[in-house]
Protein backbone atom coordinates (compact mmCIF):
# COMPACT_ATOMS: atom_id res chain seq x y z
CA UNK A 1 0.00 0.00 0.00
CA UNK A 2 1.43 3.38 -0.93
CA UNK A 3 2.08 5.90 1.80
CA UNK A 4 -0.63 8.26 0.59
CA UNK A 5 -3.19 5.45 0.50
CA UNK A 6 -2.22 4.41 4.01
CA UNK A 7 -2.44 7.96 5.36
CA UNK A 8 -5.73 8.54 3.56
CA UNK A 9 -7.17 5.35 5.08
CA UNK A 10 -6.19 6.48 8.57
CA UNK A 11 -7.43 10.04 7.98
CA UNK A 12 -10.82 8.77 6.77
CA UNK A 13 -11.21 6.72 9.94
CA UNK A 14 -10.34 9.80 11.99
CA UNK A 15 -12.82 11.87 9.96
CA UNK A 16 -15.65 9.43 10.67
CA UNK A 17 -14.71 9.20 14.36
CA UNK A 18 -15.00 12.96 14.73
CA UNK A 19 -18.75 13.30 15.23
CA UNK A 20 -18.82 17.02 14.49
CA UNK A 21 -17.37 16.69 11.02
CA UNK A 22 -19.49 13.66 10.17
CA UNK A 23 -22.68 15.37 11.35
CA UNK A 24 -21.80 18.61 9.56
CA UNK A 25 -21.06 16.86 6.33
CA UNK A 26 -23.93 14.37 6.13
CA UNK A 27 -26.69 15.28 8.58
CA UNK A 28 -26.86 18.95 7.60
CA UNK A 29 -27.73 18.49 3.89
CA UNK A 30 -30.11 15.65 4.64
CA UNK A 31 -31.74 17.70 7.40
CA UNK A 32 -32.11 20.71 5.12
CA UNK A 33 -33.70 18.55 2.44
CA UNK A 34 -36.15 16.96 4.85
CA UNK A 35 -37.16 20.16 6.68
CA UNK A 36 -37.45 22.50 3.71
CA UNK A 37 -38.65 19.78 1.37
CA UNK A 38 -41.52 19.05 3.75
CA UNK A 39 -42.65 22.69 3.77
CA UNK A 40 -42.67 22.73 0.00
CA UNK A 41 -39.58 24.82 -0.75
CA UNK A 42 -38.63 22.15 -3.26
CA UNK A 43 -41.48 23.18 -5.51
CA UNK A 44 -39.85 26.49 -6.35
CA UNK A 45 -41.66 29.76 -6.96
CA UNK A 46 -41.91 31.11 -10.49
CA UNK A 47 -43.14 34.50 -9.29
CA UNK A 48 -39.96 35.07 -7.25
CA UNK A 49 -37.82 33.34 -9.90
CA UNK A 50 -36.88 30.53 -7.52
CA UNK A 51 -36.07 27.28 -9.27
CA UNK A 52 -37.17 23.93 -7.86
CA UNK A 53 -33.48 23.09 -8.00
CA UNK A 54 -32.73 25.68 -5.31
CA UNK A 55 -33.30 23.37 -2.34
CA UNK A 56 -31.14 20.40 -3.39
CA UNK A 57 -28.43 22.70 -4.73
CA UNK A 58 -28.39 24.69 -1.50
CA UNK A 59 -28.20 21.53 0.63
CA UNK A 60 -25.36 20.18 -1.47
CA UNK A 61 -23.42 23.44 -1.68
CA UNK A 62 -23.70 24.15 2.04
CA UNK A 63 -22.35 20.74 2.89
CA UNK A 64 -19.35 21.31 0.60
CA UNK A 65 -18.91 24.79 2.09
CA UNK A 66 -18.92 23.46 5.67
CA UNK A 67 -16.34 20.82 4.82
CA UNK A 68 -14.17 23.29 2.93
CA UNK A 69 -14.46 26.36 5.18
CA UNK A 70 -14.61 24.69 8.57
CA UNK A 71 -13.78 20.99 8.81
CA UNK A 72 -10.67 20.88 6.60
CA UNK A 73 -8.96 24.08 7.85
CA UNK A 74 -9.70 23.23 11.49
CA UNK A 75 -8.10 19.81 11.17
CA UNK A 76 -5.04 21.07 9.29
CA UNK A 77 -4.47 24.05 11.60
CA UNK A 78 -4.85 21.76 14.61
CA UNK A 79 -2.33 19.34 13.14
CA UNK A 80 0.11 22.18 12.74
CA UNK A 81 -0.66 23.64 16.18
CA UNK A 82 -0.11 20.30 17.91
CA UNK A 83 3.14 19.63 16.09
CA UNK A 84 1.71 16.68 14.15
CA UNK A 85 2.96 18.04 10.82
CA UNK A 86 6.32 18.84 12.39
CA UNK A 87 6.59 15.33 13.83
CA UNK A 88 5.94 13.94 10.36
CA UNK A 89 8.70 16.04 8.87
CA UNK A 90 11.23 14.05 10.93
CA UNK A 91 10.13 10.87 9.12
CA UNK A 92 10.95 10.00 5.51
CA UNK A 93 7.40 11.05 4.60
CA UNK A 94 6.62 14.65 3.66
CA UNK A 95 3.79 16.19 5.71
CA UNK A 96 2.29 17.26 2.38
CA UNK A 97 0.91 13.72 2.24
CA UNK A 98 -1.32 14.49 5.21
CA UNK A 99 -2.57 17.63 3.53
CA UNK A 100 -3.33 15.67 0.37
CA UNK A 101 -5.02 12.91 2.37
CA UNK A 102 -7.19 15.44 4.21
CA UNK A 103 -8.22 17.03 0.91
CA UNK A 104 -9.09 13.62 -0.52
CA UNK A 105 -11.13 12.64 2.52
CA UNK A 106 -13.08 15.91 2.55
CA UNK A 107 -13.65 15.80 -1.21
CA UNK A 108 -14.90 12.24 -0.86
CA UNK A 109 -17.22 13.36 1.95
CA UNK A 110 -18.49 16.16 -0.32
CA UNK A 111 -19.25 13.66 -3.05
CA UNK A 112 -21.02 11.32 -0.63
CA UNK A 113 -23.09 14.23 0.71
CA UNK A 114 -23.91 15.31 -2.86
CA UNK A 115 -25.01 11.82 -3.81
CA UNK A 116 -27.17 11.61 -0.67
CA UNK A 117 -28.85 14.89 -1.60
CA UNK A 118 -29.42 13.78 -5.20
CA UNK A 119 -30.91 10.47 -4.14
CA UNK A 120 -33.11 12.13 -1.56
CA UNK A 121 -34.25 14.80 -4.05
CA UNK A 122 -35.24 12.25 -6.66
CA UNK A 123 -36.65 9.53 -4.41
CA UNK A 124 -38.34 11.40 -1.57
CA UNK A 125 -39.26 14.82 -2.95
CA UNK A 126 -39.86 14.10 -6.59
CA UNK A 127 -37.41 16.80 -7.66
CA UNK A 128 -35.96 14.68 -10.45
CA UNK A 129 -32.28 14.75 -11.39
CA UNK A 130 -30.08 17.44 -12.98
CA UNK A 131 -31.22 17.80 -16.60
CA UNK A 132 -27.74 18.74 -17.75
CA UNK A 133 -25.59 16.14 -16.00
CA UNK A 134 -22.32 17.19 -17.59
CA UNK A 135 -22.89 20.85 -16.77
CA UNK A 136 -23.82 19.89 -13.24
CA UNK A 137 -20.66 17.84 -12.82
CA UNK A 138 -18.48 20.66 -14.15
CA UNK A 139 -20.21 23.14 -11.84
CA UNK A 140 -19.76 20.78 -8.87
CA UNK A 141 -16.06 20.22 -9.53
CA UNK A 142 -15.37 23.94 -9.93
CA UNK A 143 -17.43 24.86 -6.87
CA UNK A 144 -15.62 22.30 -4.75
CA UNK A 145 -12.22 23.46 -6.11
CA UNK A 146 -12.95 27.11 -5.30
CA UNK A 147 -14.33 26.41 -1.83
CA UNK A 148 -11.54 23.99 -0.86
CA UNK A 149 -8.89 26.40 -2.18
CA UNK A 150 -10.32 28.99 0.19
CA UNK A 151 -10.30 26.38 2.97
CA UNK A 152 -6.61 25.70 2.35
CA UNK A 153 -5.95 29.42 2.51
CA UNK A 154 -7.72 29.55 5.88
CA UNK A 155 -5.61 26.60 7.05
CA UNK A 156 -2.49 28.39 5.87
CA UNK A 157 -3.31 31.65 7.65
CA UNK A 158 -4.89 30.45 10.91
CA UNK A 159 -2.33 30.03 13.70
CA UNK A 160 -4.46 27.57 15.70
CA UNK A 161 -7.30 25.12 15.16
CA UNK A 162 -9.71 27.40 17.02
CA UNK A 163 -8.67 30.38 14.91
CA UNK A 164 -9.29 28.30 11.78
CA UNK A 165 -12.81 27.45 12.97
CA UNK A 166 -13.58 31.12 13.68
CA UNK A 167 -12.11 32.30 10.40
CA UNK A 168 -14.03 29.61 8.54
CA UNK A 169 -17.30 30.65 10.17
CA UNK A 170 -16.53 34.29 9.47
CA UNK A 171 -16.35 33.38 5.78
CA UNK A 172 -19.26 30.99 5.89
CA UNK A 173 -22.05 33.37 6.96
CA UNK A 174 -21.44 36.18 4.44
CA UNK A 175 -20.95 33.49 1.80
CA UNK A 176 -24.39 32.11 2.61
CA UNK A 177 -25.90 35.60 2.46
CA UNK A 178 -24.37 36.44 -0.91
CA UNK A 179 -25.28 33.01 -2.22
CA UNK A 180 -28.91 33.90 -1.49
CA UNK A 181 -29.48 31.13 1.02
CA UNK A 182 -31.92 33.34 2.93
CA UNK A 183 -33.06 35.36 -0.09
CA UNK A 184 -33.33 33.00 -3.03
CA UNK A 185 -34.09 34.19 -6.54
CA UNK A 186 -35.56 37.68 -6.85
CA UNK A 187 -35.94 37.95 -3.10
CA UNK A 188 -32.31 38.99 -2.99
CA UNK A 189 -31.88 42.78 -2.92
CA UNK A 190 -30.75 43.96 -6.34
CA UNK A 191 -27.53 45.55 -5.03
CA UNK A 192 -26.32 42.16 -3.80
CA UNK A 193 -27.00 40.22 -6.99
CA UNK A 194 -23.74 41.09 -8.79
CA UNK A 195 -21.86 39.78 -5.74
CA UNK A 196 -23.90 36.57 -5.93
CA UNK A 197 -22.77 36.05 -9.51
CA UNK A 198 -19.08 36.05 -8.60
CA UNK A 199 -18.86 35.07 -4.89
CA UNK A 200 -17.66 31.46 -4.76
CA UNK A 201 -20.70 29.95 -3.06
CA UNK A 202 -23.15 32.15 -5.03
CA UNK A 203 -21.51 31.50 -8.38
CA UNK A 204 -21.34 27.80 -7.56
CA UNK A 205 -24.99 27.57 -6.61
CA UNK A 206 -26.12 29.52 -9.68
CA UNK A 207 -24.06 27.27 -11.94
CA UNK A 208 -25.48 24.15 -10.29
CA UNK A 209 -29.10 25.38 -10.49
CA UNK A 210 -28.75 26.37 -14.11
CA UNK A 211 -27.46 22.88 -14.99
CA UNK A 212 -30.15 21.22 -12.91
CA UNK A 213 -32.75 23.10 -14.93
CA UNK A 214 -31.19 21.87 -18.14
CA UNK A 215 -29.06 24.86 -19.21
CA UNK A 216 -25.29 25.44 -19.21
CA UNK A 217 -23.68 27.41 -16.38
CA UNK A 218 -23.04 31.08 -17.14
CA UNK A 219 -19.48 31.91 -18.13
CA UNK A 220 -19.41 34.61 -15.42
CA UNK A 221 -20.03 31.98 -12.73
CA UNK A 222 -17.46 29.53 -14.10
CA UNK A 223 -14.75 32.14 -14.61
CA UNK A 224 -15.35 33.46 -11.08
CA UNK A 225 -14.93 29.94 -9.66
CA UNK A 226 -11.77 29.26 -11.65
CA UNK A 227 -10.22 32.59 -10.64
CA UNK A 228 -11.01 32.07 -6.95
CA UNK A 229 -9.64 28.52 -7.03
CA UNK A 230 -6.44 29.62 -8.77
CA UNK A 231 -5.76 32.66 -6.60
CA UNK A 232 -6.68 31.13 -3.23
CA UNK A 233 -4.85 27.91 -4.09
CA UNK A 234 -1.68 29.70 -5.16
CA UNK A 235 -1.60 32.01 -2.15
CA UNK A 236 -2.32 29.08 0.19
CA UNK A 237 0.58 27.11 -1.29
CA UNK A 238 2.85 30.14 -0.86
CA UNK A 239 2.00 30.99 2.73
CA UNK A 240 1.34 27.51 4.16
CA UNK A 241 3.67 26.69 7.06
CA UNK A 242 4.34 23.18 8.29
CA UNK A 243 5.08 24.35 11.82
Amino acid at each position, binding site marked *: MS*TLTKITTVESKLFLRDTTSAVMAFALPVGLMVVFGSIGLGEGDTEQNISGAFLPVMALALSVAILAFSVLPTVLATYREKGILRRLSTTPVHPGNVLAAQLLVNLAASVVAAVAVLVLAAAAFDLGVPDNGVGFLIAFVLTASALFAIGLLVAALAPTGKAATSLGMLLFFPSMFFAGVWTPGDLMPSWARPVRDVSPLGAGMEALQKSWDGGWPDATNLVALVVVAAIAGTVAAKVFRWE
Partner: protein
Amino acid sequence: MPVIEVTNLHKRYGTTVAVDDVSFTVEEGEIFGILGPNGAGKTTTVECIEGLRRPDSGTVTVLGLDPTSDRGQLRQVVGAQLQESELPENITVAEAIDLYASFYPNPADPAELMAELGLTEKRDTRFEKLSGGQKQRLSIALALVGNPKIAVLDELTTGLDPQARRDTWQLVEKVRARGVTIVLVTHFMDEAERLCDRLALIDGGRVVAIDSPAGLIGRVASEQTLRFRPSSPLDESVLATLPDVTDVTRDGAHYIVTGTGNLPYTVVTTLAAHDVVAAELRMDQASLEDAFVALTGRALDVEAA
Protein backbone atom coordinates in the same frame (compact mmCIF):
# COMPACT_ATOMS: atom_id res chain seq x y z
CA MET B 1 34.38 7.04 15.41
CA PRO B 2 31.76 9.56 16.46
CA VAL B 3 28.25 9.18 14.98
CA ILE B 4 27.38 12.83 15.55
CA GLU B 5 29.78 15.73 15.22
CA VAL B 6 28.66 19.25 16.01
CA THR B 7 31.26 21.96 15.41
CA ASN B 8 30.84 25.63 16.31
CA LEU B 9 27.09 25.50 15.77
CA HIS B 10 25.47 28.93 15.71
CA LYS B 11 21.78 29.67 15.25
CA ARG B 12 19.79 32.84 15.79
CA TYR B 13 16.12 33.72 15.40
CA GLY B 14 15.97 37.33 14.30
CA THR B 15 18.11 39.15 16.81
CA THR B 16 17.87 36.44 19.48
CA VAL B 17 20.85 34.12 19.60
CA ALA B 18 19.47 30.67 20.43
CA VAL B 19 22.74 28.78 20.04
CA ASP B 20 25.92 30.82 20.21
CA ASP B 21 28.77 28.34 19.88
CA VAL B 22 28.20 24.65 20.54
CA SER B 23 30.57 21.81 19.71
CA PHE B 24 30.47 18.18 20.82
CA THR B 25 30.69 14.65 19.49
CA VAL B 26 28.54 11.65 20.26
CA GLU B 27 30.05 8.17 20.14
CA GLU B 28 28.24 5.12 18.83
CA GLY B 29 26.12 3.31 21.42
CA GLU B 30 26.25 5.89 24.18
CA ILE B 31 23.54 7.87 25.89
CA PHE B 32 24.64 11.44 25.40
CA GLY B 33 22.87 14.07 27.46
CA ILE B 34 22.34 17.70 26.62
CA LEU B 35 21.61 19.37 29.92
CA GLY B 36 20.82 22.97 30.63
CA PRO B 37 18.17 25.36 31.90
CA ASN B 38 15.16 26.36 29.80
CA GLY B 39 16.19 28.61 26.95
CA ALA B 40 19.80 27.41 26.95
CA GLY B 41 19.58 26.33 23.30
CA LYS B 42 19.23 22.58 23.84
CA THR B 43 16.22 22.04 21.61
CA THR B 44 17.55 24.23 18.81
CA THR B 45 20.78 22.23 18.91
CA VAL B 46 19.04 18.87 18.49
CA GLU B 47 16.70 20.33 15.88
CA CYS B 48 19.77 21.09 13.80
CA ILE B 49 20.84 17.44 14.27
CA GLU B 50 17.38 16.24 13.20
CA GLY B 51 17.45 18.46 10.10
CA LEU B 52 14.46 20.49 11.29
CA ARG B 53 16.54 23.67 11.35
CA ARG B 54 19.39 24.95 9.26
CA PRO B 55 22.40 26.23 11.23
CA ASP B 56 23.43 29.84 10.56
CA SER B 57 27.06 28.76 10.83
CA GLY B 58 29.09 25.81 12.01
CA THR B 59 28.77 22.22 10.84
CA VAL B 60 26.68 19.26 11.90
CA THR B 61 27.45 15.74 10.68
CA VAL B 62 25.24 12.80 11.58
CA LEU B 63 26.43 9.33 10.50
CA GLY B 64 28.44 11.09 7.81
CA LEU B 65 25.37 12.94 6.54
CA ASP B 66 24.65 16.65 6.42
CA PRO B 67 21.22 17.02 8.09
CA THR B 68 20.26 19.88 5.78
CA SER B 69 21.31 18.60 2.37
CA ASP B 70 20.91 14.85 3.08
CA ARG B 71 17.61 15.18 4.92
CA GLY B 72 16.04 12.33 3.01
CA GLN B 73 18.68 9.79 4.08
CA LEU B 74 18.95 11.26 7.56
CA ARG B 75 15.26 10.73 8.31
CA GLN B 76 15.63 7.02 7.71
CA VAL B 77 18.35 6.59 10.33
CA VAL B 78 17.40 9.15 12.98
CA GLY B 79 14.29 8.66 15.10
CA ALA B 80 12.94 11.73 16.83
CA GLN B 81 10.82 12.31 19.87
CA LEU B 82 9.87 15.96 19.78
CA GLN B 83 9.04 18.17 22.69
CA GLU B 84 5.32 18.96 22.79
CA SER B 85 4.39 17.06 19.70
CA GLU B 86 1.05 15.27 19.74
CA LEU B 87 -0.94 12.95 17.55
CA PRO B 88 -4.50 13.30 16.25
CA GLU B 89 -6.72 12.80 19.30
CA ASN B 90 -8.78 10.00 17.75
CA ILE B 91 -5.96 7.83 16.42
CA THR B 92 -5.40 4.56 18.28
CA VAL B 93 -2.04 3.34 19.51
CA ALA B 94 -1.91 0.49 16.98
CA GLU B 95 -2.98 2.75 14.10
CA ALA B 96 -0.30 5.31 14.91
CA ILE B 97 2.46 2.71 15.13
CA ASP B 98 1.31 0.94 11.93
CA LEU B 99 1.10 4.25 10.10
CA TYR B 100 4.57 5.36 11.12
CA ALA B 101 5.96 1.90 10.37
CA SER B 102 4.71 2.30 6.78
CA PHE B 103 6.94 5.37 6.37
CA TYR B 104 10.19 3.41 6.70
CA PRO B 105 11.92 0.89 4.42
CA ASN B 106 12.80 -1.57 7.21
CA PRO B 107 10.44 -0.92 10.10
CA ALA B 108 10.35 -2.75 13.41
CA ASP B 109 7.51 -5.18 13.95
CA PRO B 110 4.69 -3.01 15.39
CA ALA B 111 3.36 -5.82 17.62
CA GLU B 112 6.82 -6.51 19.11
CA LEU B 113 7.44 -2.83 19.63
CA MET B 114 4.11 -2.41 21.41
CA ALA B 115 4.90 -5.36 23.64
CA GLU B 116 8.35 -4.01 24.45
CA LEU B 117 6.97 -0.61 25.41
CA GLY B 118 4.07 -2.06 27.39
CA LEU B 119 1.47 -0.71 25.01
CA THR B 120 -0.15 -3.96 23.88
CA GLU B 121 -3.08 -3.55 26.29
CA LYS B 122 -3.62 -0.03 24.99
CA ARG B 123 -3.43 -0.92 21.31
CA ASP B 124 -7.04 0.11 20.62
CA THR B 125 -7.04 3.13 22.92
CA ARG B 126 -7.28 6.55 21.34
CA PHE B 127 -4.44 9.01 21.84
CA GLU B 128 -6.59 11.48 23.81
CA LYS B 129 -7.43 8.76 26.37
CA LEU B 130 -3.80 7.86 27.11
CA SER B 131 -2.06 8.99 30.29
CA GLY B 132 1.00 11.22 30.09
CA GLY B 133 3.33 8.24 30.55
CA GLN B 134 1.52 6.19 27.90
CA LYS B 135 1.71 9.10 25.46
CA GLN B 136 5.45 9.34 26.05
CA ARG B 137 5.85 5.57 25.55
CA LEU B 138 3.95 5.84 22.27
CA SER B 139 6.12 8.77 21.30
CA ILE B 140 9.21 6.65 21.98
CA ALA B 141 7.68 3.79 19.98
CA LEU B 142 7.21 6.12 17.00
CA ALA B 143 10.80 7.31 17.34
CA LEU B 144 11.99 3.68 17.23
CA VAL B 145 9.61 2.15 14.70
CA GLY B 146 11.91 2.93 11.77
CA ASN B 147 14.76 0.98 13.41
CA PRO B 148 16.92 4.10 13.66
CA LYS B 149 20.63 4.09 14.48
CA ILE B 150 20.21 7.26 16.52
CA ALA B 151 17.24 8.33 18.64
CA VAL B 152 16.89 11.94 19.75
CA LEU B 153 14.68 12.27 22.80
CA ASP B 154 13.71 15.81 23.78
CA GLU B 155 12.34 16.50 27.29
CA LEU B 156 11.21 12.93 27.56
CA THR B 157 9.90 12.94 31.11
CA THR B 158 8.65 16.51 31.50
CA GLY B 159 5.17 16.41 33.00
CA LEU B 160 5.34 12.78 34.09
CA ASP B 161 4.77 11.58 37.65
CA PRO B 162 7.76 10.06 39.51
CA GLN B 163 6.79 6.43 38.79
CA ALA B 164 6.26 7.10 35.08
CA ARG B 165 9.61 8.89 34.96
CA ARG B 166 11.41 5.88 36.45
CA ASP B 167 9.65 3.53 34.03
CA THR B 168 10.63 5.76 31.13
CA TRP B 169 14.26 5.76 32.27
CA GLN B 170 14.31 1.97 32.26
CA LEU B 171 12.89 2.07 28.78
CA VAL B 172 15.66 4.37 27.57
CA GLU B 173 18.23 1.95 28.97
CA LYS B 174 16.49 -0.90 27.14
CA VAL B 175 16.62 1.04 23.90
CA ARG B 176 20.32 1.63 24.30
CA ALA B 177 20.78 -2.08 24.95
CA ARG B 178 19.39 -2.63 21.43
CA GLY B 179 22.41 -0.72 20.14
CA VAL B 180 20.71 2.57 19.45
CA THR B 181 22.75 5.69 20.16
CA ILE B 182 20.67 8.11 22.21
CA VAL B 183 20.80 11.88 22.45
CA LEU B 184 18.79 12.92 25.46
CA VAL B 185 17.75 16.52 26.03
CA THR B 186 16.77 17.31 29.58
CA HIS B 187 16.72 19.97 32.24
CA PHE B 188 16.43 17.37 35.01
CA MET B 189 19.72 16.80 36.82
CA ASP B 190 18.67 13.46 38.32
CA GLU B 191 17.64 12.17 34.91
CA ALA B 192 20.95 13.15 33.36
CA GLU B 193 22.92 11.69 36.27
CA ARG B 194 21.05 8.40 36.12
CA LEU B 195 20.98 7.84 32.35
CA CYS B 196 23.82 9.57 30.58
CA ASP B 197 27.25 8.17 29.84
CA ARG B 198 28.41 11.66 28.97
CA LEU B 199 26.80 15.07 29.10
CA ALA B 200 27.20 18.46 27.55
CA LEU B 201 26.24 21.21 29.97
CA ILE B 202 24.78 24.06 27.95
CA ASP B 203 24.07 27.52 29.24
CA GLY B 204 23.29 30.67 27.28
CA GLY B 205 23.87 28.92 23.95
CA ARG B 206 27.37 27.76 24.86
CA VAL B 207 28.87 24.49 26.07
CA VAL B 208 30.04 24.93 29.65
CA ALA B 209 31.53 21.46 30.05
CA ILE B 210 31.44 17.98 28.53
CA ASP B 211 32.15 15.00 30.74
CA SER B 212 30.61 11.97 32.43
CA PRO B 213 28.23 12.86 35.28
CA ALA B 214 30.81 11.70 37.83
CA GLY B 215 33.53 13.63 36.03
CA LEU B 216 31.48 16.83 36.10
CA ILE B 217 30.78 16.43 39.80
CA GLY B 218 34.43 15.71 40.45
CA ARG B 219 35.45 18.93 38.75
CA VAL B 220 33.63 21.14 41.20
CA ALA B 221 33.64 19.14 44.39
CA SER B 222 36.38 16.80 45.40
CA GLU B 223 35.18 16.90 48.99
CA GLN B 224 32.67 14.66 50.70
CA THR B 225 30.96 15.12 54.02
CA LEU B 226 30.22 12.43 56.63
CA ARG B 227 27.80 13.11 59.44
CA PHE B 228 27.33 10.66 62.31
CA ARG B 229 26.80 10.26 66.04
CA PRO B 230 29.58 8.25 67.70
CA SER B 231 28.30 5.43 69.94
CA SER B 232 30.76 6.45 72.67
CA PRO B 233 32.76 9.66 73.34
CA LEU B 234 35.64 10.19 70.97
CA ASP B 235 38.45 12.73 70.78
CA GLU B 236 38.08 14.85 67.64
CA SER B 237 41.83 14.88 67.10
CA VAL B 238 41.77 11.15 66.35
CA LEU B 239 39.84 11.97 63.17
CA ALA B 240 41.35 15.38 62.44
CA THR B 241 44.83 13.92 62.07
CA LEU B 242 43.77 11.34 59.48
CA PRO B 243 45.37 11.93 56.05
CA ASP B 244 42.10 12.23 54.05
CA VAL B 245 40.32 14.49 56.56
CA THR B 246 40.37 18.25 56.06
CA ASP B 247 37.96 19.34 58.76
CA VAL B 248 36.06 18.02 61.79
CA THR B 249 33.28 19.95 63.49
CA ARG B 250 30.66 19.06 66.08
CA ASP B 251 26.97 19.71 65.90
CA GLY B 252 25.55 18.66 69.27
CA ALA B 253 26.03 14.91 69.53
CA HIS B 254 26.95 14.68 65.83
CA TYR B 255 30.34 14.89 64.21
CA ILE B 256 30.71 16.35 60.76
CA VAL B 257 33.82 15.20 58.96
CA THR B 258 34.87 16.72 55.65
CA GLY B 259 37.56 15.25 53.47
CA THR B 260 38.73 13.83 50.21
CA GLY B 261 39.80 10.52 48.74
CA ASN B 262 38.51 7.39 50.41
CA LEU B 263 36.98 9.29 53.30
CA PRO B 264 34.21 6.85 54.36
CA TYR B 265 36.58 3.89 54.55
CA THR B 266 39.24 5.80 56.45
CA VAL B 267 36.81 7.20 58.99
CA VAL B 268 34.83 4.03 59.61
CA THR B 269 37.94 1.83 60.04
CA THR B 270 39.49 4.38 62.43
CA LEU B 271 36.30 4.46 64.47
CA ALA B 272 36.23 0.66 64.57
CA ALA B 273 39.81 0.62 65.83
CA HIS B 274 38.63 2.75 68.76
CA ASP B 275 35.60 0.52 69.33
CA VAL B 276 33.27 3.31 68.26
CA VAL B 277 30.28 2.74 66.01
CA ALA B 278 29.05 5.51 63.73
CA ALA B 279 25.31 5.78 64.33
CA GLU B 280 22.96 7.70 62.01
CA LEU B 281 25.72 7.77 59.43
CA ARG B 282 24.98 9.93 56.40
CA MET B 283 27.22 10.83 53.52
CA ASP B 284 26.75 13.91 51.40
CA GLN B 285 28.36 14.19 48.03
CA ALA B 286 28.05 16.97 45.54
CA SER B 287 25.34 16.29 42.99
CA LEU B 288 25.21 17.16 39.35
CA GLU B 289 23.07 20.10 40.35
CA ASP B 290 25.90 21.46 42.52
CA ALA B 291 28.25 20.90 39.63
CA PHE B 292 25.95 22.74 37.27
CA VAL B 293 25.52 25.73 39.55
CA ALA B 294 29.23 25.89 40.20
CA LEU B 295 30.18 25.49 36.54
CA THR B 296 27.70 27.95 35.08
CA GLY B 297 28.27 30.36 37.95
CA ARG B 298 31.98 30.33 37.30
CA ALA B 299 31.45 30.82 33.61
CA LEU B 300 29.29 33.85 34.29
CA ASP B 301 31.91 35.26 36.68
CA VAL B 302 34.58 34.94 34.03
CA GLU B 303 32.43 36.85 31.55
CA ALA B 304 31.74 39.57 34.10
CA ALA B 305 35.43 39.96 34.77
